[in-house]
């Protein structure tokens, strides 16, 4: 007899995030190896869970072909040494892939179908550039269902600037600088490394060990950001400096039911309260987190004022400040991305959701006075996703 259950986030890890392309950590490393290594490290960190106890493995990838294809949740489970009795599947919701892996398997736990799951994601944007092999239906354009800009994420970010003139380039650049500074400080304090697993990488110089995020630029200045090109529009506002770069990386996390927590003596980091996804116009996809957050808050019976910590994916600075402005939160509010975000760390599309969660879990540890936090992100073709989490360390 299945009953509804609490859903706990137990642990999450990720690979260092590499620059997509020849200069990146993972140019000669397979995508599936990245997620498999993450899963093995995650299992080693949680030895109290018997491997056969996992009920599901959900791994997300946006481009599900080649080394990201072949039902990657299943292949990764086998390659990570899980027993063949543990099933797995692949998930795609572009940038919110890993987030969706968490919400779907989490929902399965809540429903009583699962007790223990692994949810994660991988995107090797060097091996699988955005848009690889896509074949959009011509109706999208012929019937003007979406604007031509909808398929190019940088253009959707420019459109978001257009829609809200108060979101200036100066604000976007200042936000980006702050993200770099926060991430640099968190690195120096050894915080980000806590959930990062080094990956052995082959290169032209032989084997090496990837143990850092390649997009981090501690020497970023406002002046420098101001001089960058605006590749998506002449005289535009979106630059490589105020958006997340093309990234390779993988994440993996463990979720458990209340029963499993008791049975195996696990130490949960946070509890899933509610989640929601919501669609918006594809040409301003960066707006997605707003309706998704509204929907999740309404379902949870909470308001934005109940949220004490925010992990918002920084696909583009403009998309973050649009969200913050909507809710009346300052661009440099200390509750928002305390260790910086994707602008400094990178955004390997379908894997980023779990990075937000691992980091939120760490913030919760440091902030027992905070009860609720959210992880939220925008998604290509006009979506947003938000998960509300409760701090298990909360001391009210």
């Amino acid at each position: 007899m299945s009953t509804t259950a609490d859903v706990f986030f137990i642990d999450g890890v990720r690979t260092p995030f590499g620059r997509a392309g020849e200069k990146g950590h993972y140019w000669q490393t397979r995508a599936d190896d990245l997620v498999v290594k993450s899963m093995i490290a995650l299992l080693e960190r949680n030895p109290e869970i018997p491997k056969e106890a996992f009920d599901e493995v959900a791994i997300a990838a946006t481009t599900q072909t080649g080394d990201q294809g072949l039902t990657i949740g299943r292949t990764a489970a086998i390659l990570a040494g899980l027993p063949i009795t543990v099933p797995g599947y692949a998930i795609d919701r572009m940038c919110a892939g890993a987030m969706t892996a968490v919400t779907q398997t989490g929902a399965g736990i809540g429903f009583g179908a699962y007790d223990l799951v692994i949810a994660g994601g991988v995107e090797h944007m060097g091996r699988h550039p955005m848009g690889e092999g896509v074949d959009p239906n011509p109706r999208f354009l012929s019937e003007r269902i979406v604007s031509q800009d909808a398929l190019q994420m940088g253009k959707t970010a420019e459109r978001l600037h257009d829609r809200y003139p108060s979101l200036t380039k100066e604000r976007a650049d200042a936000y980006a600088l702050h993200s770099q500074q926060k991430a640099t400080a968190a690195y120096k304090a050894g915080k980000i490394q806590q959930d990062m697993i080094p990956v052995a990488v082959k290169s032209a110089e032989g084997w090496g060990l990837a143990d850092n995020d390649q997009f981090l630029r501690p020497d970023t200045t406002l002046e420098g950001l101001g001089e960058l090109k605006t590749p998506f529009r002449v005289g535009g506002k979106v630059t490589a400096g105020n958006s997340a770069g093309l990234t390779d990386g993988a994440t993996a996390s463990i979720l458990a039911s209340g029963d499993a927590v008791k049975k195996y003596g696990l130490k949960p980091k946070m509890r899933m309260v509610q989640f929601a996804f919501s669609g918006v116009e594809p040409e301003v996809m960066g707006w997605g987190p707003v309706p998704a957050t509204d929907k999740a808050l309404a379902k949870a019976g909470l308001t934005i004022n109940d949220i004490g910590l925010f992990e918002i994916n920084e696909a583009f600075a403009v998309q973050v400040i649009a969200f913050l402005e909507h809710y009346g939160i300052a661009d440099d509010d200390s509750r928002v991305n305390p260790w910086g975000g994707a602008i400094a760390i990178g955004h390997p599309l379908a894997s980023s959701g779990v990075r937000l969660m691992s980091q939120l879990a760490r913030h919760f540890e440091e902030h027992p006075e905070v009860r609720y936090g959210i992880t939220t992100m925008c998604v290509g073709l006009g979506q947003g996703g938000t998960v509300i989490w409760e701090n298990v360390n909360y001391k009210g």
Partner: protein
Amino acid sequence: MSNYDKIDFKALAESTNEDVITYSRVRDVKLPSGKNFALITLDNDRDHNRPNTLGPATMIQLGEVLDQLKKRAKAGEIAGVGITGKPFILAAGADLSQIQNLKTKDQAKQIAQLGHYVFGKLDDLGVPSFCFINGLALGGGLEIALNSNYRTIDSSAAAIALPEVFLGIIPGWGGAYLLPNLIGIENALKVIIENPLKQNRMLKPADALSLGIADVMFSPARFLEDSLKWADTVISGKVKVKRPNEPGSVEKLAKWDIAINIARKSLEGKIGKVAKSPYAALDLIAASKKGTKAQGFEREDDVLSGTYRG
């Protein structure tokens, strides 16, 4: 004692004209403790169908790399040195295609001396050396590992062996001295003489581990990551490596000569006295119970050139 420093190996490299060089490339990696570690990758830039081999030019280059690392160790820049191979392959041994081109007995001796000269540096870096046996390790390939201070092995490595006796030569880059002193007389006889004579039988990684050839075994998916982590614990002293079969003085006194005599009789019974290399190997193993490593290496130099048949 031979002073390998005084020998000019350049002429040997020129005359053998090695067509595929195995490069020794170095990258620094940071160990979990924060220490800096130099990792050498042996790679001939071909796929696994053309395993890494160790000709004179390859060896000279490796020697130069090790010299640089010794300097860096002295300067306090690195806390350890690791050596590993390209995917699936550590090294398949000396470049035998070149051995056939040797013109003189002198050159054959120089091949042995060059191996000792270069691999000997692995035990003289001023910091601990590690061989991460990530795949196939035959002959000179395995001797890289034996000359290192510590060894990890990938549980999926295809084969581990010293097949020299099968080829009519002897393990002449340290193997005949180092192996018996690492895994004991009976095990060494098995690996160096018995196995090669049984249609060149080779060891599986688990065998290499239980014999004590490898100190620890890791699964392939995170072999290098785990090896580096382990090396860190060895360097920091957190892990003390125990060698299960390392011979003590009692074994050397009580068992060594008896085991050699039994092996000699068994050999004579099975293959007669025509084949030279099994007996040459046997004599080397017998002699390995005493004396210094340098003396052991020198004996190998002499014997290897003695097995040269022109």
